[in-house]
């Protein structure tokens, strides 16, 4: 956006409204995560989500934003083969460099406070029923204070991935208007590292090789959460495209249409696939497919036609259903909410789809995905592994036996459902 006239003020106002709607996406995801977990960890899931959002917002504003900065701001660069590689920003800590008023920079910060909160919720889904609140808060601090801002600088802060177009003639550089990489894939890969470190839930993988299903406790939460996510996601995609991909505010309706169509196609794809494979539609996989479509749309919604958005959503929905099964049954990755499939797999598909459908863009998108897998995943694993050495992330066997609500909070989410006397513990 360039400050020129009244249209500029209207654009800012539109952005403010859009950014203010993004928390709906967080609320929907929290509901989904809680519904996909067990009854005895429901309150824990909700509280851990609130704590993660709070930690993410504070750490990002105090530290993270200084590494991310804004495009054109101060940054450290490396000289490589005669070209500058902008790798980390050097903005002042604690948001001290921001001017007062509704400037684009302030709106970018506000959007990212919500965005990093959304990214922090994704690993919580994968670590449900066994990840301690304190450990999830420390892990979130690492995500919001280092992993997220570093990669977001490369994509949204004028870093080397964004400059691939101008430096090496690779299309328009790595494109991601709605945060498919910075939010979704980073969250999904962090979820994978958390699951690798804390291991599966007790009883998930028996010695006889059978992996019994542990269904979510409230599918109404899950489906309502999936619906609640939509307005927040539309706002996230539109605000991100305007603030980070230089899309005109007039494109907002098309972005909204593409987002909705992608989600719809993905949900129907999941519904049809599960109906064919299992004889009946699987509600939780349909909800996950729906969100997978939204995740994929974050990458493509500002750059493709509605017809292509439907195609992207169809493939995303199919991928999610197969990835959930592959991870759970073949690779022994116990991810109760399907976060890795929904956010990492569908996100990577969306990023590659930009390469398929935007001419000259493929190599830049592939380099971005390779960076996610080659830098973000090992770095996130290393950070969470070190954290686990200092502060064990998994709850003890007593916590898993009682449930996280009673063990960590001293009270359950549904006290009237308690039927075993042994579940009462001293607060």
């Amino acid at each position, binding site marked *: 956006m360039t400050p020129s006239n009244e249209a500029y003020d209207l654009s800012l106002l539109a952005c403010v409204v859009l950014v203010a709607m993004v928390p709906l996406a967080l609320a929907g995801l929290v509901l989904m995560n809680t519904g996909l977990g067990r009854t005895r960890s429901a309150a824990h899931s909700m509280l851990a989500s609130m704590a993660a959002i709070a930690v993410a917002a504070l750490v990002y504003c105090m530290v993270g934003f200084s590494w991310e900065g804004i495009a054109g701001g101060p940054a450290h660069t490396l000289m*490589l*083969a005669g*070209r500058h590689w902008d790798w980390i920003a050097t903005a002042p800590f604690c948001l001290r460099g921001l001017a007062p008023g509704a400037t684009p920079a302030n709106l970018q910060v506000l959007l990212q406070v919500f965005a990093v909160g959304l990214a922090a919720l994704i690993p919580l889904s994968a670590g449900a029923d066994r990840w301690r609140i304190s450990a999830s808060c420390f892990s979130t601090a690492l995500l919001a204070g280092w992993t997220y801002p570093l990669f977001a600088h490369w994509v949204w802060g004028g870093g080397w991935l964004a400059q*691939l177009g101008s430096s*090496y003639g*690779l299309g328009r550089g790595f494109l991601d208007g709605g945060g498919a990489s910075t939010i979704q894939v980073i969250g999904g890969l962090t979820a994978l590292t958390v699951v*690798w470190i804390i291991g599966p839930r007790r009883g998930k*993988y028996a010695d*006889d*090789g059978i992996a019994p299903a542990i269904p979510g406790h409230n599918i109404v939460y899950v489906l309502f959460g999936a619906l609640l996510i939509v307005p927040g996601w539309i706002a996230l995609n539109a605000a991100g495209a305007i603030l980070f991909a230089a899309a005109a505010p007039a494109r907002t309706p098309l972005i909204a249409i593409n987002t909705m169509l992608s989600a719809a196609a993905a949900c129907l794809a999941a519904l049809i696939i599960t109906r064919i494979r299992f004889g009946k539609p699987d509600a939780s996989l349909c909800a996950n497919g729906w969100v997978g479509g939204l995740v994929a749309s974050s990458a493509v919604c500002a750059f493709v036609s509605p017809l292509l958005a439907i195609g992207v959503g169809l493939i995303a929905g199919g991928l999610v259903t197969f990835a959930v099964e592959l991870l759970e049954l*073949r*690779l*022994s*990755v116990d991810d109760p909410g399907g976060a890795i499939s929904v956010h990492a797999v569908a996100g990577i598909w969306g990023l590659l789809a930009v390469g398929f459908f935007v001419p000259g863009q493929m*190599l830049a998108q*592939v*380099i971005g995905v*390779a*960076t996610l*897998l*080659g*830098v973000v*995943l*090992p770095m996130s*694993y*290393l950070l969470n592994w070190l954290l686990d050495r200092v502060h064990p992330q998994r709850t003890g066997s007593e916590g898993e036996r009682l449930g996280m609500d009673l063990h960590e909070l001293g009270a359950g989410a549904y006290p009237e459902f308690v039927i075993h006397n042994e579940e009462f513990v001293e607060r």
Partner: protein
Amino acid sequence: MKLAGMLLLLAGWGIVVSAVVLFPRPMARALFVLAGLGVQGLGLILAFRSGARLPEGGK
């Protein structure tokens, strides 16, 4: 094995970035980027294999 997987992921990324820097010709660049992705694929397989449970009777 997980450590080896992570190192391969990092090495694959190094090949991808090197391809961008060293090869101005699109074909050579694309081939080396694909090679880097292949190395990353091996890294992912190793990392997942280290966490996967072997079928009954497997060692």
